[in-house]
């Protein structure tokens, strides 16, 4: 359906996207993961034809959209990370405005608006000004606008940033439903690994302008099949102790957050003993030690050296 080939974008001296290759098959949900500044948004802007690539190509059903984006745009809905709405218009007026610029017939538009309001659950608040909406309601309307013209392909750029868990769940369910019921293909970026794990069939991991890993959830996790994750909680995490663990030859990755440490070590190795010994050496009081099978977050950490939300 959509193929991205060796896409590059250079802004003055900065190479924001460096040779990205990816594809989307009809009806799948694909996750695009990466820390801030990885080049995700620039990639999405190029794929959605908003900015021209420095080199490379984007093909929609085998036709390049770089110079002729009209066909893709007819079938594409984009949910930007920002609340791209008019705050001084009501929810319904926003939908009416975007429906009209999508040239949806007047009679059809009224029906489409009703449908969209049903999907995003904003029927009761449709006549309130957007500026009076909660963060979750704005996010839902942000999605609703992208659904008006019945797209077959939707790019969602962090659609759940900064909202309460209830709204987040609602959005995730909506995305899942859109994919299942309407067979809409979705490219989904998020900082929340659990969202990607829940929604996506395949995943691309991006860092510093490159795709550094790609595959199904299981394939990605398999990258860490030879490793295990050890979660440690201590009364106080001392620098000496972190240094000792970091310098240990079996520790592939280490992250410290508050009073917790996450270590990636070889699977077959019994690392418990080492943890206890080094803790004693540095007078660290341990509260708990757990071994986990790798998560996508661990894979991300392994590949980029950073937590997803860094």
């Amino acid at each position, binding site marked *: 359906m959509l193929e991205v080939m060796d896409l590059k974008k250079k802004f003055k001296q900065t190479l924001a996207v460096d040779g990205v290759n990816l594809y989307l098959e009809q009806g799948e949900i694909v996750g695009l993961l990466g820390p801030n500044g990885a080049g995700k948004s620039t990639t999405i802007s190029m794929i959605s034809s908003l900015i021209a690539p420095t080199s490379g190509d984007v093909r929609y059903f085998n036709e390049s959209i770089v110079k002729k984006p009209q066909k893709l*745009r007819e079938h594409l809905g*984009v949910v930007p990370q920002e609340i791209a709405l008019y705050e001084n218009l009501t929810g319904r007026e926003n939908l009416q405005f975007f429906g009209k*610029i999508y040239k949806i017939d007047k009679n059809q538009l009224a029906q489409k608006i009703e449908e969209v309001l049903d999907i995003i659950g904003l029927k009761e608040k449709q006549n309130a000004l957007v500026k009076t909406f909660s963060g979750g309601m704005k996010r839902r309307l942000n999605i609703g606008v992208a659904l008006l013209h019945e797209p077959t392909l939707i790019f969602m750029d962090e659609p759940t940033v900064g909202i309460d868990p209830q709204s987040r769940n609602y959005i995730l369910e909506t995305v899942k439903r859109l994919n299942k019921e309407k067979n809409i293909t979705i490219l989904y970026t998020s900082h929340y690994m659990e969202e990607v794990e829940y929604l996506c069939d395949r995943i691309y991991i991006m860092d510093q302008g490159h795709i550094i890993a790609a595959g199904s959830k299981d394939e990605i996790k398999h990258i860490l099949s030879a490793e295990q994750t050890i979660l440690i909680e201590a009364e106080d995490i001392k620098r000496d102790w972190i240094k000792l663990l970091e310098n240990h030859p079996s520790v592939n990755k280490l992250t410290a957050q508050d009073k917790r440490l996450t270590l990636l070590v070889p699977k077959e190795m019994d690392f418990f003993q080492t943890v206890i010994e080094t803790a004693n050496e540095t007078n660290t009081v341990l509260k708990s030690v757990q071994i986990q099978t790798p998560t996508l977050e661990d894979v991300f950490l392994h590949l980029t050296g950073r937590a997803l939300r860094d």
Partner: protein
Amino acid sequence: MIWPIIKKQFRLMVRDRTNFTLLLVMPLVLVFIIKFSIGDLMTQGIPEIDATIAIAEHTEEEADLTQLANEWEEQPLPEEAKTQLVQGLNQFQPIRILKEEILGSEELQDVFAVVDIAPEEVEAAKKEEKYTAIIEVPEQFSYQLAKSSFLNEGDTPQLTLFVNKSEDLVTEMLQDILLVYEEEMRTTTVLERNGVGDLKPSLEEIRGDIVSVSMVEPITSTSYYVVGMSVMFVLYIASTMGSYAYLEKRDHVFERILLANVSKWRYFVGMVLASSLLAFTQLMILFGFSVVVFGVTWPNIWQFLLIAALLSITVGAIASLVVSLNYRFQSEKSSTVFGNAIVTVFAFLGGSFYPIKSDIINLIGNFTPNGAGMTAFFATLQGYGMNEIVDELMVLGALTFVVIIAAVLVFPKRGEQS
């Protein structure tokens, strides 16, 4: 495609209380304040001036005219001609007409107080600047003027006008009144001699000439500021639209519009049209309100509408340039600079704050959209026709063209960082 953009801009503008106040309430409040703080400079075309005019006669009109009548009686003329001349002479009392029927007329008596002074007092009065102006009537003035007018004999005598230099407006008015008075006295007498016309010049004729000779425009201060404030505040449409467009860009709404297969040029045209229509609506509301509240009416409504429409299109063009600059520099600064600085400079140069006396500033001001619009509106208020405002309309047209070209060149192209 463009209409939804225009409709949306109107909705946004109406719901934006801050800008709504700035664009509609502020100019009217300012006109109110100015009206009640400085009052009307001109009322019904006549300036509100309290001036005292002294008239010093070095002659006696009755004696002059009697002497001439006696001379004519002794002339070897047919009796019928003599009777006609004497009858004409009986109505010919130029000094009385000047004092009573012109300066003392109903329309001018509130403007000028006329006092008679003896010729010996003239020098002292000049030194003391006791009077706003002194008119000296030379010896045998009526005698000479009648002779020159009726028989075309001898030179036409001149009145001497001394004015206090601090009273520019009075000076100009008096000079014009006297100029027209002398001319009218001479020509109407000639007409009378030929059996046509009335012997005294009408005040309307004099007033009509005052307007064209001295360029004292019969525009009330209320009219002045209604026009001045309206053409100034209409410029804020450009900065407001620039800000709205910047928000659309910042919040990625613009990208959504592009993704709906709306070309950026359609969006651009939509912004120009929306700004022009908003500017036109603003002008109509302000001027409409002024008709009802301040009584500022337009003698030629079509001419007025044409100027308003052209000025609105120029404002639309300026708005497009501000939008382009905001997009190019990815900030709202262009709107801020235009709204906070450039509008004020334009308003000063164009004369929105007060009438500009400097010729150079006037010239520059006429090349600002508000200045050109203001001059055209004033000419229309005074009853001038299209011929008199062609220059201003051309300035507005040229400004629109140049500014739109600049806006198109500045607007970022696809692929540029915008």
